[in-house]
C-alpha cells in the first residue's frame, strides 16, 4: 500500500499537479504548504503552543469548516430551488418528500448555519478574552467583526428562502426595523425588498444576496483574515512563556 502510494507520487502526472516533489524532509514539508494555493496562506511552521486545544478551542477552524459545509450543501440545494412565489415553498416540500436525501441536505444546511453563528460568536469572545485582538492584530480583529456581520447577513437572507410563515414574518419585522433609520430608512427598505412589501422581488433579491453576493464578499474577507494571521505574527499564544 505504502509503496503503491510512493510510486503514484513518483509519476509524471502527480508531480505535475503537486510540484512539491517527494520526500519527508522539512524542506519538502515546507514546499507542500508553500506550493499549494489553498495552504499557502498559512506559514510553513507554527508554534507548538498554538496547536494546543485550550489556546483556541479551534473555533476559527470550525467556523471556516461550517462555512465550507454550508457552501457545499447550499450549492446542492440550489439545484432543486426556484426563488419565486409560491414555488419556493413547494420546493421545500419537494426536498422533504420527493428529493432523495433532500431533507438531510436541508437539515444539514440549517443546522450548520446555526452552528456557524454560534461558532463565530464564540470565536470572537475567545479571541477577546485571550487578548489576541491587541496590536499588531487590531486590523484582523476588525476584519473578524466584518465577518461576524457577514455571517449574520448570510443567515438572515437565507432565513427568507423557505417562504414559510416563520420566514415571511421574521423578514417583515426585520425590514421594518431598517425603515426606522432616520431620513432614508424607507428608501433603504424599498431598495432592499424591491417593493413596499415582502414579495416576489424581495425573495429574488435575498436569494441573489444569499447565494452569490454575500458568499463572494465573505470569501474575500476570509482570505484577508487568514493572510493577516500570518502577517501579524502567527496565532497568538500569550505574552508570557508557559511555566
Amino acid at each position, binding site marked *: 500500500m505504502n509503496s503503491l502510494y510512493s510510486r503514484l507520487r513518483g509519476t509524471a502526472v502527480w508531480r505535475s499537479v503537486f510540484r512539491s516533489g517527494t520526500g519527508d524532509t522539512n524542506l519538502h514539508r515546507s514546499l507542500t504548504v508553500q506550493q499549494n494555493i489553498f495552504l499557502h496562506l*498559512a506559514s510553513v511552521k507554527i508554534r507548538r503552543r498554538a496547536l494546543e486545544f485550550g489556546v483556541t478551542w479551534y473555533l476559527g477552524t470550525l467556523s471556516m469548516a461550517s462555512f465550507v459545509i454550508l457552501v457545499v450543501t447550499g450549492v446542492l440545494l440550489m439545484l432543486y430551488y426556484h426563488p419565486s412565489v*409560491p414555488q419556493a*415553498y413547494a420546493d421545500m416540500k419537494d426536498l422533504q418528500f420527493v428529493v432523495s436525501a433532500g431533507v438531510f441536505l436541508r*437539515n444539514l444546511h440549517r443546522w450548520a448555519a446555526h452552528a456557524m453563528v454560534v461558532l463565530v460568536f464564540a470565536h470572537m469572545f475567545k479571541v477577546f478574552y485571550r*487578548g489576541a485582538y491587541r*496590536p499588531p492584530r487590531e486590523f484582523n480583529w476588525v476584519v473578524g467583526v466584518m465577518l461576524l456581520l457577514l455571517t449574520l447577513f448570510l*443567515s438572515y437572507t437565507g432565513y427568507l428562502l*423557505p417562504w414559510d410563515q416563520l420566514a415571511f414574518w421574521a423578514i417583515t419585522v426585520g425590514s421594518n426595523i431598517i425603515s426606522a433609520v432616520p431620513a432614508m430608512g424607507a428608501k433603504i427598505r424599498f431598495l432592499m425588498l424591491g417593493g413596499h412589501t415582502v414579495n416576489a422581488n424581495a425573495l429574488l433579491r435575498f436569494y441573489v444576496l444569499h447565494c452569490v453576493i454575500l458568499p463572494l464578499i465573505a470569501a474575500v474577507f476570509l482570505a484577508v483574515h487568514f493572510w493577516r494571521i500570518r502577517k501579524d505574527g502567527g496565532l497568538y499564544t500569550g505574552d508570557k512563556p508557559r511555566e
Partner: protein
Amino acid sequence: MVDCIRGTSPVSEPKDFRASFDSDSQRTPVRVAFVTRRTTPHVTKAGDDRVMTNPDALLRVAVAVMALLIVLVVVSLLFDAPLEGLANPLQTPNPAKAPWYFLGLQELLHYFPPVVAGVVIPSLVVLALVVIPYFNVNVEAEGFWNRNGERKSILVWVAVAALSAFLVWFSVYAVLVPTLVSGGALIVTAAAPPQDKGFGGWLRSKPLPFWIMTWFLVVAITLTVIGTCFRGAGWSWVWPWGEL
C-alpha cells in the same frame, strides 16, 4: 524574529550584529532579523518551539473538521429543520419571532422605540467592537483595582447607579438584572485580597475591557434566552415549563 539571533556583539568585536543559524538551516527556511545599532533586543523567549504546519497542524485541523461534520450529520439525521405553513401576509403568527440570534434585539424592541433598539443600539455595539483594539488597548492587561482604587470605586458606583436608574426609568428589568450582577461582581472583587489565588484573585487581575465585555456578554445571553424561552403570545411573559 529576534529568536534566530544567538547572542549579541562581544565586547572585543565592535560589530553591529552577528547572526548564526541552526544546523537545519540548509533545509528549512529561516527568517533572519538584523538589529542595527548596538542595542540588545529584549528577548523574553529563547526561540519558541515551532513545528511544521504539514503534518502537525493539518492533521489536527482535519480531526477538528471531521468531528464537527460528524456532529452536524448526526444532528441532521435526528432533527428536522422547522418548516411552517406557506407564507401568508394576512395572518401574523402569534408570537412572531425572529431567528434566535436576533431575539435579544427583538426583546429590546419591546422596551425601546425601533430607532433606538433597532438602529442606534446595534450600530453602537458594532462600533464598540470595531474600536476595541484602538481604544485603551491595555497591553499590560493590568487588574482594574490595582491602582487608584478609591477614585475608581466612586466612578464604578456612579456608572452602575446611573445605568440602573436609566433602566428602571424605562422598566427594562431584563437588562437591569445582568447589569446589577456584573456591576456587583466588579464592586465585590475590589474587596478580594490581591494575593488571593482563587476565583476572587483571578477576577481581581482582570482589566476594565474584560468587565465591559463580560457585561455585554451576560446582557446579550440574558436577552436572547428571555426572547427565546420566556416570551409567548403577544410577547407576554410565559414560563417555558408552562403555567405554575
